[in-house]
């Protein structure tokens, strides 16, 4: 019954029970625990760490049981992947999936908060929508998990020129400013069909540095670093003196109690801080700051990272990058190059490859971004790792996701060919062992209009909701 409700909601219209049942069929997918083993045989298997030709992947009860070259176990449902490629589900990083529906519709966007007292403590996990129509679209791009990150309200939009604030002559930069340095806390989600997509909330804290961070702090980078250090000092003071704070026996602190609490794991180095940073000089400052303060950081953006790749590698800091960023969009990305991914990887930096435009609607393009990194020097295996095991490692899911290895979640995608190629499509998507429908609202629209939008009976297509 829950599934029926889901389908009705997806269609955006009240439909009869019979209609809903009919609708549910093409979207398919068993929504109950899968106990019959599934064996995917004959394909080229990218495990995340190796390649097995003519491999066999067996999954059962939501987990990968075995990955090898043997025959399918008896009683298994067999998916013949001969001539195809089998990969782990991809993990989208720096994503807004499930947190925003239509970018320009403010009410549908739960990724940015401009509240004065809720900055670091802002938690995206409460705003996630398991019924978001962005999820099936991303799933068809092979994405099975995502790190959903908040956006800083002063950070500006990610849309193209015709649709952003550039329409307004003389204005720019988004207008909103938050007094907080922090955008809030990220969550890990699954893209599996169902009514609960949250895997883990509060997996990382987000803070913009560079131009965006400077803007928040007063207009110059030097102010932000001071403010950041001062904030951590206050968090530590608070953490040591909670009882005094409760008695109002502590000096005034600039952050709310909620924000102070949220920052304790950052200050003690247990929660990673995703630092949005682009310029090589800013990256160096962030690495230095992280070392001085004992903060665990993840670089996000890092377009000029190749200039200081050795420093990033030496610090053991990973980077979330979009390898196709190759233009000097502003004065902090003047050294952007298509070879950034290759250079960072060669230097030993653990990289994860992002999708486009905030990895919401265009999250599915992450596999093409990886392909373009390959055509600009990144080894193929490293490109696959940058969408699978690397993000799993960076976000503490190693062994659980991003890899076809016994015991890991059965997030498996069967592709018509090389998954980095635009000409390739996904034919089967399993998430935690559940087969997902190869469909989306886009497919329903496509099929409604492909024959001219009119039924053979002469009735408008609106009477035939597929």
């Amino acid at each position, binding site marked *: 019954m829950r599934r029926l409700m889901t389908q009705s909601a997806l269609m955006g219209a009240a439909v009869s029970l019979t209609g809903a049942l009919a609708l549910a069929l093409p979207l398919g997918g068993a929504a109950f625990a899968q106990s019959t083993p599934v064996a995917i045989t004959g394909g080229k298997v990218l495990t995340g760490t190796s390649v097995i030709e003519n491999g066999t992947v067996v999954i059962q009860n939501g987990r990968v049981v075995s990955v090898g070259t043997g025959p399918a176990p008896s009683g298994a449902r067999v998916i013949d992947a001969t001539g195809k490629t089998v990969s782990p589900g991809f993990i989208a990083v720096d994503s807004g999936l499930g947190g925003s529906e239509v970018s320009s519709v403010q009410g549908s966007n739960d990724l940015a908060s401009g509240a004065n007292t809720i900055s670091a403590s802002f938690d995206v996990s409460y705003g996630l929508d398991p019924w978001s129509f962005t999820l099936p679209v991303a799933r068809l791009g092979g994405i099975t998990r995502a790190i959903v990150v908040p956006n800083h309200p002063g950070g500006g939009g990610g849309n*193209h*020129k015709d*649709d952003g604030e550039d*329409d307004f002559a003389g204005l720019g930069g988004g207008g909103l400013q938050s007094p907080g340095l922090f955008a809030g806390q990220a969550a890990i989600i699954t893209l599996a069909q169902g009514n609960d997509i949250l895997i883990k909330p509060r997996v990382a804290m987000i803070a913009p540095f560079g131009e965006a961070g400077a803007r928040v702090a007063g207009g110059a980078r030097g102010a932000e670093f001071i403010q950041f250090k001062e904030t951590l000092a206050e968090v530590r003071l608070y953490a040591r003196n909670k009882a005094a704070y409760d008695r109002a026996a502590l000096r005034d602190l600039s952050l709310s109690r909620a924000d102070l609490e949220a920052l304790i794991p950052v200050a003690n180095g247990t929660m990673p801080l995703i630092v949005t940073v682009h310029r090589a000089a800013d990256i160096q400052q962030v690495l230095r700051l992280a070392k001085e303060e004992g903060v665990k950081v993840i670089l996000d953006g890092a377009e*000029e990272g190749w200039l200081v790749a050795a420093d990033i590698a030496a610090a053991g800091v990973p980077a979330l990058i979009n390898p196709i960023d190759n*233009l000097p969009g502003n004065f902090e990305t*003047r*050294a952007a190059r298509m070879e950034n991914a290759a250079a960072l990887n060669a230097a030993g930096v653990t990289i994860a490859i992002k999708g486009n435009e905030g990895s919401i609607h265009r999250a599915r393009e992450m596999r093409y971004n990886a392909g373009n990194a390959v055509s600009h*020097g990144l080894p193929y295996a490293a490109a696959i790792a940058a969408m699978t095991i690397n993000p799993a490692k960076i976000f503490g899911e190693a062994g659980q996701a991003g890899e076809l290895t016994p015991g890991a979640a059965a997030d498996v995608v069967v592709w018509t060919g090389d998954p980095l190629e635009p000409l390739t499509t996904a034919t089967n998507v399993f998430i935690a062992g559940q087969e997902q429908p190869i469909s989306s609202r886009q497919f329903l629209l*496509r099929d409604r209009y492909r024959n001219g939008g009119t039924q053979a009976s002469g009735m408008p297509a609106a009477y035939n909701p597929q």
Partner: protein
Amino acid sequence: MKMSRLRGASLGVLACAMVGALGLSACATTGTSSSTAGTENKGPEPLATGLDYAANRDPYPSTYQPLPRQNSAIVGATVFTGTGQKIENGVVLMADGKVQAVGGADLAVPAGYTVIDARGRWVTPGVIDVHSHLGVYPSPGVQGMSDGNEATNPNTAQVWAEHSVWPQDPGFNTARAGGVTTLHILPGSANLFGGRGVTLRNIPAMSVQGMKLPDAPYSLKMACGENPSRVYGSRNQSPATGMGNVAGYRAAFIAARDYKAKWDKWRDTGKGDPPTRNLQLETLADVLDGKILVENHCYRADEMIVMLDIAKEFGYHVTTFHHAIEAYKIAPLLAREHVCAAMWSGWWGFKMEGLDAVESNAALVDAPEGSCAVIHSDDPQLTQRLNQEAAATLAAGRAAGLNIPEERAVAWFTLNAAKAIGIADQTGSLEAGKRADVVIWSADPFSVYARADQVFVDGGKAFDRFDPAYQPTSDFELGQPGYGLQAATVNEGAR
């Protein structure tokens, strides 16, 4: 000889402009207005060229000079002609900047030609991006360089994108490395009438005139939908709604009809004072005359249908709908009306009118007889990969059961794109007599791994991936962070 062939039309206009500057007014009759036929008998005294909009439609003429070139033969590649042909082990002959002949291995290479061994590679016509803001929204995209939207009035048909183009935009160079040889630069979409677009050759030049494609028609950028009503509605000004948008288009064309009639009458009778020239109305009047093409930003099917009715109401033709997210809903209508649709594959969901996108849009639009499906960018990143964007829509179309071969789909970013901006007689396909705009790809261009190895514009080598002598940098790029440093080897993964 070959120089005059390329510049012929502009030279006449240039001479005329020079004469006008000397105080002589002998050029008015070079105008191409439909009403000039009667000027010799009963027409008025010619005006100075700056005062009669029909006297000189080209006051900022092209000074484009093709790059140095030699007669060449590209041999051994898989050739997509852009006209639906695929030739294995093909030969493309380029002479005097033109495609001389295209054929199979049996096509003889004349003596003295430079032979380019392209075995194992692919050849296509030069990529054409019909919706670019390079130069007007350049990199760096800082406020001081944001020159794409004259968002001061719903009707700015008087502005010309070419007057905002910064030729030093590094994006021209990255686009060329993606095979882009021709760009149509448009103003943005803040207004109902955004201004004139211009078609450029993608070669480095000191000025926009040095990039202008000779004999390319001007266009008028029009915008439907959310952008104009949001921009002006937020200022408590019309248009604030879709109905305000339509009222704005209609009012403008009524004024343009009136303006054109006054000029026609004055030219026919010679009586009274000539009308005062109006830069805004003359662009619209030239649209009504069919001299300026309409490039209409319009996402939704219902809005496109209304725009076609407006075109009928006032007697003009919509050449292309841009960002036509819902074109798949009206594919047969667009084919019947001979209107091109320029589309993305992957973009959607950024605003309400982008909600109903389907990845297979271009493939579905391509299906009816007489269709004109185009892949466009509107973006300095995407313009570098229009071939990959086409591949994504091709795959989505195939998944939907449309059996479209690559040799047909290549037209989405070549020949159909040329049609969409009115230059298909000059470029867009590898056919004898057309400009030798050619890309040699390292692999099948529908592969993510394919890179443009060499790019030719009018037969001149404009880019070579393996030769720094053919990798131009803009003035802006000199001495910037990372300048002169190689980020990483690019040979490992490229195929």
